[in-house]
Each structure stands twice: as C-alpha cells, then as structure tokens.
C-alpha cells in the first residue's frame, strides 16, 4: 500500500509539473503567433495523432526557418500548444475550452478524426475562434452552418466515388454497359464509413449499377468472413470496403484466406493499415483511396513539390509521410497564408482571409466554399502494383495504368 501511495504521489507531482510547465500562452507572444491543438497522443487514435502532430510540427519548423510569417511589416514565428485529447471527444472539447480560456489561444488547428473534430467545433464556434482542420472528413461537419471551421481535405463522400467511375470506364472499354455492373459494399457502421458509403451509392445509382451486397460491419468488428462468403457466392464486379485500418487489414487478409475472386477491389485506409508491408503479394491489385500522393505535381514555396515534402518528412521522422501528415502540414501553410493576407491578428479578419483562401500547396489546391470545406482538391486512387502505390485515377494525375481485372486466386 505504501508503495502504491508513493507512486500516486509521484504521479501527481509529475502531473503538477506538467501543468506548470505549459506556457501561459496568448494569441501573440512577442514575435510568436501561438496556435493551439488538442490531438490524440494516447488512446485509439494515437498512431494517426502522431502523424498529425509531425505534420503540424514540420510545417511550423519550416516556416520559422524561412523567417516566419510577416504581418504588418514584422516577421512572426509560429508555435503550437498541444494537449492530449486521449482520443475522447469529451476530453477534446474540454481541452479546446482550456486552450481558448486559459491559454488564450486565438487560432486553432484541428484534432485527428471526424469524431473529435465534431466534439471540438461547437466550442470554437462559441468563442468565434477560427479552426483549420486537416483530419475531419465527415460531411456532416459541413452541413451545420459552422462559420469558423475550415478543412483542407476532401470530404468523406468523395473518398471512393472515383472507384465507381473507374469501374464504369473499364466496363465501357470491355464493351459492357456500366449499368450492368454489380456492386458489393462492406462498410463499418461509423459516421465516417457510412458517409463514404453514401457517396459510393450515389455514384453507383448515377450509372444505374446494382448493389448486390450491402454489408454493415459492427464497430468492434474482428471478422468479416460472413460478408466475404456472400461476396464469394454472389460474384459482384466490384467490391468496396471501408472500415478504417482494421477494416482494410481484415479485408485483405480474409479475401486471400477465403480465395474470394472479384475483378475490382477498392478500399480506404490502405496506407495507415500498411497492407503492402503486412501482406505483400496478397495486397496486389487493390485500389486505395487517398487524399494525397507524393507523386502528384502540386507545388508551393515552403516545401517545394509533393515529392520534396515527402523527402523532407522522411529525413526528419524516418518514415514516409502518410496523407494524414501531409494534410496536417498543409493546414499550417493555409494559416500562414491567411495571416499574411489578413495583415492583422484580429480573429474576424483572419477568418475573412481564411474564407478567401485560394492557393496551391504541395498537398493540393485549397479554396473553401461557404461551409468551410475544400472544393478544389480531388481524391486520388492508388493501385498496388508490384508492391508499390501507383496513382491510377483520376486520369489527369495518373502515373500508371490500372491493371484490371484482378486475376483469380488460382492464377496468383
């Protein structure tokens, strides 16, 4: 018991030091502009939270090394105050209050995931604090009339819509009508995946395709063999899967295990599930939706091209940047640009400047519609070819031709 009490005391004192050590920030301290963010350092989003923080930090470092942001003829450095939201919405909202009320932060960066963004937006809206976010894609974030929310990424319903278009294109090449295609869906039952599903269904309907399997995976899914068995029996022309990293990992593993033959397989979260590294040949031919790719030809003055960003990031952190890191870095660039154009620190003016953003970053073009979502950056579609991600759609950015259809398992 004594040991327990001592440990508790030690823990408490560490906590205290933590509190004392956090700077009592203000919107601008001397020559530093202070941004605030609650990001998941622990809990179920901690991996992607790390990518988010690395992206933010890299952009801040780079901007500061280039002299910082000039406002009113003076150069300002950027700094970010982070708190750990523990991957919990309630904690995220609490920390947003704390950033705004105690640390006096006037400019927020987003957390990781749609769920946490949803939890924090009401707070930032209440205090009229602008928030530029890079990791909340759910379209329900942009239907509530939020005024201070800006998102640099493509929204969720666009994630896999290009896969349907691609399937239709391929069908035409083979002399089949797109409306003759049969689509199988396997989506997790969470807001993000269901948004993706809605987008896919809209597109499939537009081409007159028939949905033959519409599987919903429970949130605590650990087995999707039931749905895959059905896919195996029904033999659709395209299978679309979305269920975060877990869904992607399970799908690849079990499609191979069950030897399910389907001409086209499209999914989200391939790279965060590291399916190439984990499954090698089994992952071949899979189509993966991505916000960004290092091979795209976007450029900006801070990082250079998309490929330059990828190199800078890898040199610093020792791993290739997933798109979560790239879009996070882009959010900081958007802020820097807005400060310079606003030429003031007034949140109203910064918000107006954000709303008028029209720029190209290494991550893609950025222009916000009145609801705050970026409307000029398309999603890209990778295909895994010989153990590498190759961009195959949309055609404008494609670096490789799609390999279609997927060969059957007896030929692989």
């Amino acid at each position: 018991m004594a040991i327990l009490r001592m440990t508790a005391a030690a823990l408490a004192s560490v906590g205290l030091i933590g509190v004392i050590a956090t700077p009592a920030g203000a919107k601008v301290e001397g020559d530093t502009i202070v941004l605030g963010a609650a990001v998941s350092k622990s809990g179920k989003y901690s991996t992607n939270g790390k990518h988010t923080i690395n992206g933010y930090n890299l952009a801040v470092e780079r901007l500061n090394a280039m002299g910082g942001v000039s406002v009113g003829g003076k150069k300002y450095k950027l700094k970010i105050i982070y708190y750990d939201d523990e991957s919990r919405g309630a904690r995220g909202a609490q920390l947003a209050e704390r950033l705004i009320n105690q640390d006096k932060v006037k400019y927020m960066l987003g957390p990781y995931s749609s769920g946490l963004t949803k939890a924090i937006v009401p707070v930032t809206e209440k205090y009229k604090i602008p928030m530029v976010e890079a990791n909340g894609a759910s379209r329900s974030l942009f239907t509530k009339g939020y005024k201070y929310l800006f998102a640099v990424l493509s929204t969720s319903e666009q994630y896999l819509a290009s896969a349907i278009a691609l399937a239709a294109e391929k069908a035409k090449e083979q002399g089949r009508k797109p409306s003759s295609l049969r689509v199988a869906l396997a989506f997790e039952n969470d807001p993000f995946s269901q948004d993706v599903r809605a987008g896919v269904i809209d597109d499939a309907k537009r081409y007159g395709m028939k949905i033959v399997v519409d599987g919903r995976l429970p949130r605590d899914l650990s087995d999707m063999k039931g749905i895959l068995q059905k896919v195996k029996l029904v033999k659709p022309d395209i299978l679309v899967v979305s269920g975060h990293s877990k869904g992607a990992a399970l799908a690849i593993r079990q499609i191979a295990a069950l030897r399910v033959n389907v001409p086209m397989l499209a999914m989200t979260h391939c790279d965060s599930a590291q399916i190439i590294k984990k499954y090698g040949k089994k992952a071949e031919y899979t189509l993966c939706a991505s916000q960004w790719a290092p091979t795209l030809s976007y450029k900006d003055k801070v990082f250079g091209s998309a490929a330059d960003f990828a190199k800078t990031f890898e040199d610093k952190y020792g791993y290739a940047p997933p798109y979560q890191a790239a879009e996070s870095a882009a959010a900081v660039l958007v802020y820097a640009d807005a400060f310079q154009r606003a030429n003031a620190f007034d949140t109203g003016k910064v918000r107006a400047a954000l709303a008028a953003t029209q720029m190209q970053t290494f991550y893609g073009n950025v222009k916000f519609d009145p609801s705050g979502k970026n409307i000029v950056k398309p999603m890209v579609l990778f295909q895994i070819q010989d153990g590498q991600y190759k961009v195959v759609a949309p055609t404008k950015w494609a670096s490789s031709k799609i390999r279609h259809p997927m060969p059957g398992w007896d030929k692989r």
Partner: protein
Amino acid sequence: MFENIQLLAENPVGLLNLIFDGIMIGAVFALIAYGMALVWGVMNIINLTQGEYVIFGGFIAFYTAGQWTFRIDAIGLSLTWPGVHALWALLLAPAVLYVIGWVVYRLVIFRIVDRDMFTSILATFGISILLQQFMNSVFTADDVIAPHNMGTWSAWRTDMGELAIERVRVVALAFALVVGGFLAFYLKYTRDGQSIRAVAQNARAARLMGIDANRVYARTYALNAALCGVAGVLVSMTLTIHAFTGLIYTVRAFMIVIIAGLGNVTGVIVAGLGLGAAEKVAEFVIGTSYQVAFVTGLLLVVLLYRSVRLAMQRKYLA
C-alpha cells in the same frame, strides 16, 4: 433475409464453408471459456479480464513473428529479434501469461476471493481497463495481426465452388480439442487438479486436509490467463487485434459458460463450437450488424428454456 437463405440453399458448399469457419473460431472461444469456467467455478469470480489476456497473447504472437529492435541508447544496448514463425508463440504466450496471471492474483485477486461477486466484477473490470491502457501505451494503438504463411487449403472443389479452409484455423481447432482433453485429464487425475477440485467443492474442508487454498487459487487464475494467451495467439493469426478489442472475447466466453454450465469441460467445447457455427450462419442470413444481437438472443432463449424446464420439474415433484 430470404434471399440469403435461398443463396445458401443453392450453394451448399458455401454453407459448409460458413459452418467450418464458425466451428474453428468457436474453438478459440471455447479455449477462453474453459479458463473463465475454471476461475468461476473454483474461486466464484467472474473474471472480466479474459479479453485483455487474449489480446496480450495476440501481441506476443505479433512480436514473435515480426522483426524488431530493442534499444536503450544510454547504455548502448541494442537487441534485434529476427522474427520466427508465429506458432512458436503458442509456447511463449501461455508462459508469459501464466506469470502475468500469477502476479495479478498476488496483487489483487487474492484480496477479493472471499468477497461477493459484485466486488470481484468491479475489481476485474478495473484490471481490464488498466491492462488495455497499458497495452495501448506499450504496444501502440495499431491494429495488429501476426503474419504467417500457412495459407489456405482448397479442400474440395466442385462446380458450385470450393471449400476453402485456412490451415491456421485447423490448428486452432486441434489445439482447442487437445487443450480441452488435457485440462479434463489434469483436473480429474493429477494431484494438482484434484486439489483444485477439492478447493472448489469446499475451500474450508480442503484447508483442513492440508491443501494450501491460496496457492491453488493462484495456480487456477494463472492457468486461466495462460489459456487466454493461447487463444490470443490464434486470434491474432486469424483476425486482427487491438488493445481495446478484448471485451468481445470476454462476452463470448461468458455466454459459452452460461450455456454450458460451470465445471463442464465437454459442455464448454460443444457450446463453443456450436455457438461459433450458429453465429456464422446467422451472420450470413440476418447480416453482420445483428450478429451480436443473435448471440444475446440465443442466450436469452437458453436461459428461458432452463427456467421453464426447472419449473416443470418442480411442478412434477409437488
């Protein structure tokens, strides 16, 4: 729903596939349920940490199969693990989990053995949260699989399709049966097993006969953790694991124990395999989202049936 039934009727091979799959995953559930039944029966504790022990075992399999480097820069220590076949974890995981189970018993469980069930549920629930957070911070929050190249056995090809059986699931089934047999033998014929049963029947009398009940409890609890560790290895070789997904295994184990009854090893095996198969077929017919509802509904039916039967017997006696 009806179209799904029709689909199965037209594809008997598909139905067989489902049943095989279910039986094999049920075997893993059975392993976890043995342990739960054992702890429940002997110590009167409903152990809610089953799932976390499973996940822990899964992580051990993951680290057994993968390559990694352990580094402490301060003293220049650098150890590289080359990675071996995940099946080796079937030996390693129960050993590690046995130790963990023993430590947990010595720290917490022995304090609650004689308390009411509510206390033990709260305590083990607390331990499960602690373990989740521990695994989350030590093993990261990634979804993890133990890679292996055991492949699929295309057993029976017909015009209607093929029977695709994952080899690792066959291993899981065999393992569950062997461990079940071993456990039954251990409890019935060995000295240690007999002392466990003695303590379960009457702890006080057992103490009077010179059995160290506390040690028996520790051994039982550690054995349970080891069983979960074995199950965890098989889970991470067939499905995916994550520090926070242990609960579903606890719930399944609980149901199997309820259906089979305490102290009934054969019952646990049959209930585990049966539940697995029923669950898979039900999932196919009524959809994955209702899978858990189906399992819970089944539990309700079993309990109702039992109470009705019991009431009838009473009537007959009266």
